[in-house]
């Protein structure tokens, strides 16, 4: 039972941030694509904006790894 709970906790730790990141990136990506169509020189800024929410899933991954291996 413990193993199941640990696996479930790890899955939640990475799954929820992954969904959140995907949602945020979809919104930023769509807006970024619109901005790039009008101002291609904003590509650097758009990359940064799209990349920012990725930290969430990386943090989730770190937590999941700690739950699975470090716990």
């Amino acid at each position, binding site marked *: 039972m413990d193993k199941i709970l640990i696996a479930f906790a790890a899955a939640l730790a990475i799954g929820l941030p992954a969904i959140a990141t995907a949602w945020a990136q979809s919104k930023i990506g769509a807006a970024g694509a619109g901005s790039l169509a009008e101002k291609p020189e904003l590509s650097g800024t758009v990359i940064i904006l799209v*990349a920012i929410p990725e930290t969430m899933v*990386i943090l989730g*991954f770190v937590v999941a790894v700690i739950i699975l291996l470090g716990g």
Partner: protein
Amino acid sequence: MSKVEIVGPRDMLGETLSLVRKKGDLHIEPSAVGFVDDVHKRDIHSLLPNEKALFEKIFLQQLEEKLNSLFACLPTEAIRESFLTPRPIIDTVSRTLDKHLGMCRSLFDNRDTLRHDLAELSHYKIFLATVSTMLDKIGLIPDLDYIGISLKDEKSEDILKEGLDCLADASCELFTVPTEEGALVGLIAATKDVSDDIRTLLSQKQMPEFTFPESIQSLSFVQKVEYLQKEIREKETALNSVNAELEEFTHRWGPMYRAALDWVHEQLSIIQVSAFSFETAMCFFIYGWMPAEKVASLRAGLQKNFSGSVVLEEIDIRIEDLERVPVVLQNPEYFKPFENFTRLLPLPSYTSFDPTPFIGLFFPLFFGLILGDAGYGLILLLVSIMTSRFSRKKRLLHDAIRILKVCSLYAIIFGLLYGEVFGNLGHTVLGIKPLLIDRQKNIIPMLYFAMAVGLAHVTLGLAMGFVSALRRHTKKEALAKLLNIIFIFLTVALIITFFGLFPQLLKRPLLITILVLCPLLLFSGGILAPLELLKNIGNIISYARIMAIGLTSVLLANVANQLSGLTGDFILGLIVGGIIHLIGIIIGVFSSSIHSLRLHYVEFFDKFIELGGRKYRPFSPNEKKGQENDKTETEEEHYKQEQRAHSS
């Protein structure tokens, strides 16, 4: 960059600007703000063009338009250099230009019409060529009627033959010849009494007769063929003749008109830039920026050409000027391709650092750390070596390949350190063992390692930020950066102490130091300083992606190996494994590049790079377009600076 001022008698402005343009090193400042002291502001004002200059500008613009129209009519071939000086003959050029432009336009229109006619006739060409060979073979019999048709394939030919057999028995015959496109060209020779029935049959079978232009409908089939062949020959000869005339004209007059156009461009750019000059009752002033090492050369040039009448002076750069100093990226050859990554961001300000060398050093390193597979690296190296020969003409592609070459070398090095050659294939087949660490089995140590890389990178960024702040004389900001570094190290030491790696006795002194430094951090960084500190710690954790993405890359490679093994067949296994490894390489290259870049843009540059630098645009023959594009920008900037100066 040096801040310079060029001063001379007013009548020498044009010649001075011409020399400055030839040298091509001076970025001319459209505003005098920061160059003229308040005491002298009343005496110095923007140079306003007189009536003569305005007429000259209009004349040159019209001439430029005509010359551009002329060159638009001429073939784009290399024009030899002219040794004529355009200035003394510009009036003659202007007069002959009208005549030549009219002639060239007429030739150009004629050529267009001929090309259009030939394009319309081109779809008859294949048919005519095939039919004429058939006519030669079968010989012409005056009592027969000939019908030309195009058939899709041999099946259509059989259908038509059947139809003709039923209809006319032996009074007609079908000849076909295949064309290069795979279709068939057919010719039906029939007695005149059945030709109408054959046409009806063709219509029923949806095999339309080959149509000729309406103007020659009254002619017989053979006459139509001959007429069209003659028409095509004549038009081709006429087109060749027009092309030859245009080439002859370009060869004869092109160099002179090209020299005239270059001269007109130069004069127009000088007139345009002279609007950025300033004057007193006697003198002109040009203010600007140029690389410090080029100052001596321009000064010597002015001395040589104007015997001391026009002088160049270097002015001290003041703190308030720092925002306006233009920026140019200059890097050694190795770093040049990485400037493409820097150009994705706005230019760094003059007091900040050029981020290119940092990307050049760390981007391939992170790429190697993430991809870390000797097999993948070797394939990428081979691809980059093979494609580099074909990419020399395309600068961006050539730069990308150079970057890929360096990155693939790092991927090979880290692949050997991780013991990865196409995932675990190197280990299972060749017995290759990791030289440093097996990242599939040591996930937690790799996580710590990735975050240690982050700690080093972020701390370096903060240290650079500290230096940058000192250069800008913003001491508070410098202190905040320094305190952030100290806090990060203290926090890391505290965490390590909690894990028992440092003596437990350190806990209290570490906590006390943190508490003591807190007010100082709030003082230097303001109320948002703790948030900034948390952001920095979050940035360090973000480097965990080096381990995470790397792990997915190696797991995908292992999946490829397992699936190819499951096929149980060598060839099939090779194909399956090859395809999945190829996907792995493509994903690996993209994700490694994107994440390495992101670590630079978001986590690293944020710490020390002040964006918003002005691009260095020297006044030079090559920068004509750039100057034109910037005209609105500079004028706007000039207006804003004047407004600011007035309000202050």
